């Protein structure tokens, strides 16, 4: 199959999953039922679909798209297949300051403000350590890994010191949780993902060239330093937005680009949009599973992404080796 055909296919899959997500829950409808509920003037069904499921599905899709895009960008920037949105400690900075704010009893916009501060602090440290007349990917990766573990230590400390009352909320937030999405802000992650895609898609061929070494890329006329700086900034913004919206949901950002590459999408012109569609769909389906598999109990979506993604990934890897 030609790689470009993947995009419409992924879009259709995403739309089908979106419809399924709207229709499924404690009260399940068939597809026409969902449609009727949406068109109805009022009623409980309309209320459920519009104010509960639609925002949550939209937010899940948006966050999945953000995480997968961040993963693909960082894997290209660091030339490291193990890179994910959390590798550089940006999310660690966001998480730590958000938890600190929770501990102080803050909520709403204050949490977002605290998270943003954490992201900027991390970015500042990274630039300070890894900028030597241009970003040095090796230094960036090392600095990021150390920064992540430092933030991790602070988080552990905060959790150990936290009183019981906010503790459960903090732990759920850490694991990644879409149940607290504000309906008014549900479309923000998807908007952010599309904007980030618009900003980075023009760089796609540069990422392909960078895959053959910095010197070859520069000889082909790629402005490597500018490309790296833009990529880091976009990846940092994208990660921050995803973590602020839904906490640290693991696995989607690491695995989505790899799944798509194994499916034959190697060139970033197709890979980046495919990450937006594929990552979004993956997280939306995982969230659907998280809220329905053990209903009325809600599972943390981060656990579900790993449980769903790991076997599929291993299967693809095994098949690929033959």
């Amino acid at each position: 199959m030609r790689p470009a055909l993947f995009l419409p296919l992924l879009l259709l899959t995403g739309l089908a999953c979106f419809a399924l997500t709207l229709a499924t829950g404690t009260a399940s409808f068939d597809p026409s039922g969902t449609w009727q509920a949406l068109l109805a003037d009022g009623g409980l069904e309309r209320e459920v679909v519009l104010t509960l499921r639609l925002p949550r599905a939209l937010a899940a899709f948006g966050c999945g798209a953000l995480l997968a895009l961040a993963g693909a960008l960082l894997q290209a920037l660091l030339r490291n297949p193990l890179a994910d949105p959390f590798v550089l400690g940006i999310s660690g900075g966001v998480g730590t300051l958000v938890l600190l704010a929770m501990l102080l009893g803050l909520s709403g916009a204050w949490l977002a403000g605290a998270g943003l501060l954490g992201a900027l602090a991390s970015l500042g440290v990274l630039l300070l350590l890894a900028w030597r007349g241009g970003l040095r990917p090796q230094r960036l990766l090392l600095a990021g890994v150390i920064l992540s573990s430092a933030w991790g230590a602070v988080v552990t400390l905060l959790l150990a010191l936290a009183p019981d009352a906010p503790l459960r909320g903090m732990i759920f937030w850490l694991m990644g949780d879409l149940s607290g999405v504000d309906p008014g802000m549900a479309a923000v992650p998807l908007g952010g993902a599309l904007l980030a895609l618009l900003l980075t898609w023009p760089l796609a061929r540069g990422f392909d060239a960078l895959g053959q070494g910095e010197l070859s890329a520069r000889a082909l006329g790629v402005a490597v330093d500018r490309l790296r700086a833009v990529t880091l900034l976009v990846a940092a913004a994208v990660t921050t937005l995803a973590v602020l919206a839904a906490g640290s949901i693991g696995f989607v950002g690491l695995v989505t680009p790899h799944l798509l590459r194994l499916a034959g999408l190697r060139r970033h012109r197709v890979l980046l949009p495919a990450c937006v569609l594929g990552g979004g769909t993956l997280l939306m389906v995982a969230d659907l599973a998280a809220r329905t598999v053990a209903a009325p109990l809600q599972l943390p979506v981060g656990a579900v992404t790993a449980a769903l993604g790991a076997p599929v990934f291993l299967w693809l890897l095994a098949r690929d080796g033959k």
Partner: protein
Amino acid sequence: MILTTCQLSVSIGGRRVCRDLELSIEAGSRWAILGINGVGKTTLLSTLAGLRAPQDGTVLIDNTPLGDLPPRVRAQRLGLMAQEDSFHISDPEVTALEVALLGRLPHLDWWQAESVRDEALAHTALAAVGLTDIANRRAATLSGGERRRLALAALLAQEVPLCLLDEPTSHLDMHQQIALLDLLSGWDGRTLVMTLHDVNLAVRYCTHVLLLFGDGEWCAGAATEMLSAAVLTRLYRHPVGAASGPHGTLYFPA
């Protein structure tokens, strides 16, 4: 005159590669840069390619300072085939054809997809280096010699009048060395500047040589005039003998 240098001084790590280098490279000529290991051949080549700022002086391409050109315009005029160890492919899935297609990058605007012509050029380039059969193989599975030829195919697809090559013959057996240099010297009208370790290949294929003696000392000119056993003895800091061969003088370590 396609490439000229004006009072060019290059150094790396405190060591001088060349001082006040004045080169005039004419269109269609083939230059070899010769010197001992570590004298700075690769550094000088990167500087000539505009990828490294000189300590002093300027490099001009068609009378325009290289530094004044946007990277993409520069890459439409000159291409560089990097040394084997800096041409490593991090994505194990990428195919030979995709590597060759990247040579078209400087000619494509970001919104453009590769055209039928671009793909045809990549295929032609692969055919020219004898890699047609493995176009869809993963580049990471190619042998050292095949990877050299693949890098050359990408350079060919780049369609630049000036090609800089860093040790194009490394990792190649005798037959492949000759095949590759035959191919290079058969490229119509292209100007070549390459670093070489084998003086005899320079004698056979290059019209001009640039000799780097270390400490910034250099001399440049027509290969037949510049090369002699005495000069090479000084260049390589080892006694060099000469004998006459079918393609000109043959040099050997005494």
